[in-house]
């Protein structure tokens, strides 16, 4: 029996990299994990650090490593720096406060915060500042506060960030760090300055009192910033010729918070902001980062208007920068300021519009949003030209938003009704499939209101349909228009352009074509069927229309069928009055209640004893279902609804509609009547035939007029007796 020395981390890495497949890698990992586990069991102190390092490597690749958590704690408790270093790292990667085991670290961290070696103290601060729970923070806040006052800059800077974490976890403890902040800004060490500013920022953001208290630091912050800009070359802090740009950015941000809404503070920083804005070298990214931060600060505080214009002009210059990152942040900032400084941003409109042609998707999106924000009554024609061109050529992900934006802008600023209609047409024909569903009713409303343009609109839409019926929103709006203004189309009344010659049959051909086309969605079919029906009042070819409607009266598509049946009671349409294709039985609305029973006789044998059920009972309206099986087709369930009314007023114009899941087929026959008499003096019956093999579910819609007001209700019917569908 030979005791194996655990392999080194680098050896493991090398081995795993020779694996040619995922399976091979997994096998190697499992083998090594087994070895590590047994090594842990042997409580080997020498190689524990090595084993945990390997475990962390495997964890990064996505393999489970939780069995190493306790080992990390043992490493943290060790005296060796190597052990502590990897142990703390392991704890930060594998543990968090959700695991109870993490509390065991508290004592170690406490001791290490007071260790004689600053790097051990540093490890403890780092770990506490990353993952310390609220309890740990409460326990150890005092130690952190002590270290915040040390003269050791390495520890002081870490203590500052650790304090930020403590405050985030236990906000009540913020007060105790206040004394230590007193001379933080007098530090010479930039690392300490940097994290101190972060700490001050955190405190100001969390507490208005702290914010007010720290306003007195503004002069000192301004001085530090000034020194950074004006100081000679300093090799330690120089980045591309700029002294510690990171610190400058941090200070600018704190100044922003302190200056916001406060006149005195804002005034105290005006000069330095102007100085930074005009003097910062912009050829490198670092300069731009500072400039950008300066602009944001100028915009947020109460700065002089001259300074604000300067800031926006800087942003405008950024838009012309070759660096796409600069262009991106500039557009983002302009978007934030366009409401408050609209005129200043308008000056850069053409540059912004140019960004619509940028290759970068993020930049394009920003440019689009900003362009819409800049549209007004003066520039609408020019802007819309650019935006429509953008709509034509942009990626699909933009089209819906762009179309919506165009509609909104057109509605607000259209210079003429004709222009408005033309713009809508352009959007519908070029991006018609991307237009949002809710645009359709809005567009219909718009067209309705543009009375003098009806003839022109319907003509243009009709012509568009001849070209292309694939874009559903376009087809829907066009169908609706033709239904409403088909008479204007036939009579060739268009004034805006050459009127086309078209006959009733040609129009009906187009609409019928929509009904049968595979490209049409069910909603679109609904629109076109409705349009056809409406034309019965405008066209003379009523017979043709009746034929179409009756075909769709028995359609499997329940929506269409319901639409067709809805028109049944309509005087104008009298469609189902004894014509040549009577799929739906042609009972007149005023037939007595027994009509349902006659139909049942036609349909065959009575039930096999399926019990009736109450499907609906609300506000005095009660609807019972009774069941039969049809003969000769036993798969068809025949349901008779019996509607009764217990209130003291009749329910008139009563319409019962039903819908079933797609796997079913449903046929709704005509009702016996559309008046449900008061005080249970009679019932309205109606027959539903359902072809079903599964559990039956149904959604019903009831509409009626009761005591002068219209009532509508939707309900689910789920309590069908099993025998009705088995």
């Amino acid at each position: 029996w030979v005791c194996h020395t655990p392999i080194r981390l680098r050896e493991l890495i090398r081995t795993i990299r020779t694996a040619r497949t995922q399976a091979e890698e997994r096998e190697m990992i499992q083998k090594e994990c087994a070895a590590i586990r047994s090594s842990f069991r042997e409580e080997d102190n020498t190689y524990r650090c090595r084993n945990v390092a390997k475990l962390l490597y495997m964890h990064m690749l996505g393999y489970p490593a939780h069995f190493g958590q306790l080992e990390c704690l043992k490493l943290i408790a060790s005296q060796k720096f190597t052990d502590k270093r990897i142990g703390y790292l392991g704890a930060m990667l594998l543990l968090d406060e959700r695991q109870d085991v993490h509390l065991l670290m508290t004592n170690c961290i406490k001791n290490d915060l007071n260790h004689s070696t600053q790097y051990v103290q540093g490890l403890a601060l780092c770990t506490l500042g990353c993952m310390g729970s609220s309890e740990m923070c409460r326990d150890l806040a005092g130690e952190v506060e002590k270290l915040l006052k040390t003269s050791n800059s390495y520890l002081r800077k870490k203590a500052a960030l650790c304090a930020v974490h403590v405050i985030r976890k236990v906000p009540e403890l913020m007060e105790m760090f206040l004394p230590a902040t007193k001379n933080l800004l007098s530090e010479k060490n930039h690392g300490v300055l940097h994290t101190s500013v972060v700490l001050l920022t955190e405190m100001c953001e969390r507490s208005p009192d702290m914010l007010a208290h720290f306003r007195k630091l503004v002069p000192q912050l301004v001085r530090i910033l000034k020194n950074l800009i004006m100081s000679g070359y300093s090799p330690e802090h120089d980045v591309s010729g700029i002294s510690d740009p990171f610190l400058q950015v941090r200070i600018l941000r704190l100044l922003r918070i302190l200056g916001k809404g406060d006149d005195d503070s804002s005034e105290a920083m005006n000069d330095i902001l102007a100085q930074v804005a005009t003097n910062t070298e912009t050829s490198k990214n670092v300069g731009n980062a500072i400039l950008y931060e300066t602009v944001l600060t100028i915009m947020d505080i109460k700065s002089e208007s001259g300074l604000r214009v300067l800031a926006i002009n800087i942003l405008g210059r950024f838009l012309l920068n070759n660096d796409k990152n600069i262009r991106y942040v500039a557009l983002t900032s302009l978007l934030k300021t366009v409401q408050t400084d609209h005129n200043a941003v308008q000056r850069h409109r053409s540059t912004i519009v140019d960004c619509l042609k940028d290759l970068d998707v993020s930049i394009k999106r920003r440019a689009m949003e900003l362009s819409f924000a800049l549209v007004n009554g003066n520039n609408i024609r020019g802007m819309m030209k650019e935006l429509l061109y953008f709509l034509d050529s942009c990626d699909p992900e933009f089209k819906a938003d762009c179309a919506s934006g165009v509609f909104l802008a057109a509605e607000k600023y259209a210079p003429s009704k004709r222009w408005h209609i033309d713009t809508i047409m352009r959007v519908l024909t070029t991006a018609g499939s991307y237009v949002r569903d809710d645009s359709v009713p809005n567009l219909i409303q718009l067209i309705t209101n543009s009375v003098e343009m009806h003839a022109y609109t319907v003509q243009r839409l009709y012509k568009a349909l001849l070209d292309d019926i694939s874009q559903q929103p376009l087809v829907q709006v066009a169908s609706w228009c033709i239904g409403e203004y088909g008479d204007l189309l036939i009579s060739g009344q268009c004034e805006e352009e050459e009127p086309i010659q078209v006959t009733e049959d040609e129009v009906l051909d187009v609409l019928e074509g929509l009904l049968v086309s595979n490209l049409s969605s069910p909603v679109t079919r609904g629109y076109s069927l409705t349009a056809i029906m409406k034309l019965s009042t405008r066209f003379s070819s009523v017979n043709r229309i009746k034929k179409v409607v009756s075909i769709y009266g028995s359609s499997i598509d329940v929506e269409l069928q319901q639409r067709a049946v809805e028109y049944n009671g309509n005087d104008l349409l009298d469609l189902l009055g004894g014509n040549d294709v009577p799929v739906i039985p042609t009972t007149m609305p005023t037939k007595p209640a027994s009509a349902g029973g006659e139909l049942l006789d036609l349909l065959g044998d009575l039930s096999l004893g399926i019990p009736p059920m109450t499907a609906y009972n609300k506000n005095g309206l009660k609807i019972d279902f009774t069941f039969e099986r049809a003969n000769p087709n036993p798969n068809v369930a025949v349901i008779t609804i019996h509607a009764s009314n217990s209130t003291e007023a009749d329910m008139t114009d009563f319409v019962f509609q039903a819908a079933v899941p797609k796997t079913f087929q449903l046929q709704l026959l005509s009702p016996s009547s559309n008046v449900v008499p008061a005080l249970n003096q009679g019932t309205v019956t109606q027959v539903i035939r359902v072809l079903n093999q599964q559990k039956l579910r149904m959604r019903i819609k009831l509409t009626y007029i009761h005591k002068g007001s219209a009532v509508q209700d939707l309900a689910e019917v789920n309590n069908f007796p099993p025998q009705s569908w088995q």
Partner: protein
Amino acid sequence: MIKAILIFNNHGKPRLIRFYQYFTEDMQQQIIRETFHLVSKRDDNVCNFLEGGSLIGGSDYKLIYRHYATLYFVFCVDSSESELGILDLIQVSCCSFEVFVETLDKCFENVCELDLIFHMDKVHYILQEVVMGGMVLETNMNEIVAQVEVQNRMEKSEGGLSAAPARAVSAVKNMNLPEIPRNINIGDINIKVPSLSPF
């Protein structure tokens, strides 16, 4: 706040993963995959900011990344971070790695993927001196490297985790590995040539 720092190669293989917010192991791997998916389909000539994927946090979070040869460096940050500043920070971190490798082994002039692979622990330690608890700790590269060096020497004097790194690197050089070290152009951060302040 920085939510996560991810370094992975052109094939999405993780080289360094550090989360500053708790995610389960599964979530972590999913985030890595999703992030790789998002950055890898970006052209090299588009900007380095991306809206974050849905997993890591929603509309307040952005991915800021740089692509150097075979490696992606990705910082996932929230709106409290300066986007341009983070780009610089990535460069600072890269420079620190570069200097670290230089002091380690004179043979490599610029940091490459192999260095990150074989010195995963050291890379973590460097990062720890740059970012702490999701916040920027130190941006002076010389400071960072000096502090890491002292700690490395302390480890070495105790015997360290494993054999001296120089030996591992030369052993690696003798193997036929599929990946070829490439140079990484760090960009405009210049640590060697002093330039005069314009003021």
